[in-house]
């Protein structure tokens, strides 16, 4: 199937390349010694992306999509100097990558390392080149051929109203769960950490100063404003250190998890109702620059320090499903834990509707669609490395919730050591002191352990005595762009909600009315706030409930996108190539359904929502719960039943869309009427520079 290399040299190069790739993969997969160097991960990853990009993406573009460089893109045809603008391909690549790369590929892989490094790494590498990159590229192609329309519109046009509704509900549900789980990650990073809390609070006035600067003082000077903002952000990290060192200030910033949760909710609501230029837009600029900077810095630092990966390839939790961070075995849970980095449905919302309006030429779809996702997958590999270079015992001590390993430090280290991952209280205390934290035990959520890994790598690269500064810089970096996703997501979610409310009440659906904005924002924040509070109160740390639910909803959206793409490929008369999207779809639908069934119906109360609710109800009735737990129990029982209903709803929506597509395809193949291919008519491009 591969495009044949044109010359002998190319052939020899290909063989050599493949051997190199195979040996790098082999080194990662077959290592039997104590440790393995992180550079092997980098080598395996880079070769994997290069080969897939050079051959698989080229083949898809030539045979399946048949990109046509003479065809005018929507950006050219509708050029309005605003959202439709033919853009230099590297600039468009930068915009697209900055839009798709969020905190997901950093957190999911960190959590999945409880299975050992191998399952997550293989899924990130294979899932990206066969699934995620393909999804992003094909959806971008479909949208570009359809005047830059969104996934929801394409689902409606190509499949019919059922597909359209499913895409709308899917996108809104993923938004709610995503924001709740990201909020939980922030809570776990901030709780009882005056340094982190003070730093995070400091970023809010910084964003506002930058907003005022770009609005009033030097309108539109984004670079200047951002450089100013980044300097101020570094000042915030320093300021947090001062607060944490001061007896009198420390207590004011020492918040428990419910206080942190309230902060996150109030922040999300304020950001959604304040004018965008004041908080949302400037924060987005800052987090984008910081994100790109830190990602490249981390890649450089890993290359320089070449750290050893200490995590075993596989842990016992892969098989027994009793991992401390989340329950359930490798199959299917690694595939929903790592969504972003392998395949993320959310990308299909940017790949349709947003980026296609920037493309100057169709052939750039390959680099921007496939290439950006490969780069995001590489970010996930770096998160894997950062999580695996610390001692496994330390990784588990940071990430295991108190409800699993015990509240007291001595009990926690004893449990973790008994699993075969030795760690001591002294070691953890010394580490916490080095990082400028009171404790690092039970900081589930991925952010603190990633920050410890990043701080260690940066510290080794740059030397000096600033481990605590690096740790809080890493925390600030993570929180900054989680908050960006959180406030941008709340705003978009509010628009989606108003779009639905329009059918119920006209005034509430009016996006330009301020009271309607406030009411609908309040409803949307209450929706994700409900799940956030449930996660905070959950005795097993919340991640166990919310992260799989998030993964399932993200994969559900990917499933809808791949279904729409498969339907379009079939209607293009390319049934024999439909496996390009149908294969990843089949894999995702299987894993997603399997995970949802386990999360709902498993008889193990730590995995199944219903069993968990029933066990808690039985404990409550038997009176074996301590008074504080008993008071929280009824809400938690009800919450777990809601989670069960959601998981079932996700799967139902996914299969409805899949069957709708199959029904439509069968009608098409039988020659009966179906919604016509909604591709816009061909017109020849006049942009010679973009054909180059």
């Amino acid at each position: 199937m591969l495009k044949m290399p044109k010359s002998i040299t190319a052939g020899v190069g290909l063989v050599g390349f493949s051997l190199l790739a195979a040996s790098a993969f082999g080194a990662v997969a077959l290592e039997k010694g104590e440790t393995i160097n992180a550079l092997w991960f980098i080598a395996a990853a880079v070769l994997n992306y290069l080969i897939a990009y050079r051959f698989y993406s080229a083949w898809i573009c030539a045979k399946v999509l048949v990109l046509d460089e003479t065809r005018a893109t929507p950006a050219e045809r509708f050029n309005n100097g605003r959202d439709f603008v033919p853009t230099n391909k590297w600039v468009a690549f930068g915009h697209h990558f900055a839009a798709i790369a969020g905190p997901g590929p950093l957190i999911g892989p960190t959590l999945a390392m409880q299975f050992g490094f191998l399952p997550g790494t293989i899924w990130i590498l294979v899932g990206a080149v066969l699934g995620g990159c393909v999804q992003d590229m094909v959806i971008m192609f479909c949208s570009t051929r359809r005047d830059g329309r969104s996934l929801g519109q394409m689902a409606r046009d190509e499949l019919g109203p059922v597909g359209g509704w499913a895409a709308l509900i899917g996108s809104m549900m993923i938004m709610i769960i995503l924001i709740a789980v990201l909020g939980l990650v922030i809570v776990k990073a901030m709780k009882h950490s005056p340094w982190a809390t003070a730093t995070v609070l400091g970023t809010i006035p910084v964003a506002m100063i930058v907003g005022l600067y770009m609005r009033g003082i030097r309108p539109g000077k984004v670079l200047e404003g951002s450089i100013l903002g980044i300097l101020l952000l570094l000042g915030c990290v320093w300021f947090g250190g001062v607060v944490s060192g001061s007896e009198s200030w420390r207590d004011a910033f020492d918040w428990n998890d419910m206080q942190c949760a309230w902060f996150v909710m109030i922040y999300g609501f304020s950001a959604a109702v304040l004018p965008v230029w004041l908080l949302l837009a400037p924060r987005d600029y800052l987090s984008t620059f910081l994100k790109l900077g830190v990602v490249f810095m981390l890649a450089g630092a890993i290359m320089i320090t070449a750290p050893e990966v200490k995590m075993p390839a596989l842990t016992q939790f892969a098989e027994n499903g009793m991992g401390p961070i989340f329950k359930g075995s490798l199959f299917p849970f690694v595939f929903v834990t790592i969504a972003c980095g392998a395949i993320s449905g959310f990308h299909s919302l940017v790949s349709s509707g947003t980026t296609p309006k920037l493309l100057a030429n169709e052939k750039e779809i390959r680099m921007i669609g496939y290439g950006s996702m490969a780069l995001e997958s590489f970010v996930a590999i770096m998160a894997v490395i950062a999580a695996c270079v610390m001692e496994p015992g330390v990784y588990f001590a940071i990430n295991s919730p108190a409800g699993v390993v015990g509240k007291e430090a001595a009990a926690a280290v004893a449990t973790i050591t008994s699993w075969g991952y030795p760690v001591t209280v002294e070691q953890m205390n010394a580490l916490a002191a080095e990082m400028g934290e009171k404790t690092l035990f039970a900081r589930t959520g991925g952010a603190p352990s990633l920050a410890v890994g990043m701080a260690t790598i940066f510290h080794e690269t740059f030397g000096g005595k600033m481990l605590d500064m690096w740790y809080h810089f890493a925390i600030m970096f993570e929180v900054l762009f989680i908050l960006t996703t959180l406030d941008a997501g709340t705003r978009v979610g509010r628009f989606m909600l108003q779009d639905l409310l329009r059918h119920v009440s006209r005034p509430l659906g009016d996006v330009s009315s301020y009271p309607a904005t406030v009411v609908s924002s309040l409803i949307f924040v209450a929706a994700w706030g409900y799940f956030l509070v449930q996660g905070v109160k959950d005795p097993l740390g919340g991640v166990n409930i919310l992260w799989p639910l998030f993964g399932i909803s993200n994969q559900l959206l990917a499933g809808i996108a791949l279904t729409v793409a498969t339907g379009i490929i079939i209607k293009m008369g390319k049934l024999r190539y439909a496996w390009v999207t149908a294969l990843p779809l089949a894999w995702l639908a299987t894993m997603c359904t399997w995970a949802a069934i386990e999360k709902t119906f498993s008889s193990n109360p730590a995995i199944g929502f219903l069993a968990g609710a029933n066990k808690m109800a039985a404990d409550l009735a038997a009176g074996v719960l301590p008074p504080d737990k008993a008071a929280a129990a009824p809400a938690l029982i009800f919450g777990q039943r809601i989670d069960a209903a959601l998981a079932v709803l996700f799967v139902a929506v996914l299969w409805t869309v899949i069957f709708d597509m199959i029904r439509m395809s069968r009608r098409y193949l039988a020659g009966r009427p179906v919604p016509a291919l909604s591709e816009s008519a061909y017109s020849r491009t006049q942009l010679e520079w973009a054909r180059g």
Partner: protein
Amino acid sequence: MSAALPADLRKLWEFMRSVAGDDAYERYLERHARTHPELPPLTPAEFFADEQERKWSGVSRCC
């Protein structure tokens, strides 16, 4: 080398401005002059206010 360097640096600077969106207003003016020169263009402040409102009203960030 010494002659090529400033040109390369300039290109890099232009590229960064372009990625950040610093040159959006210039591009707008240029296009405005071409398409409807009879109308007065927006001021920089008005233009950026409009742009920010537009950019952050759709899905611009993923997880």
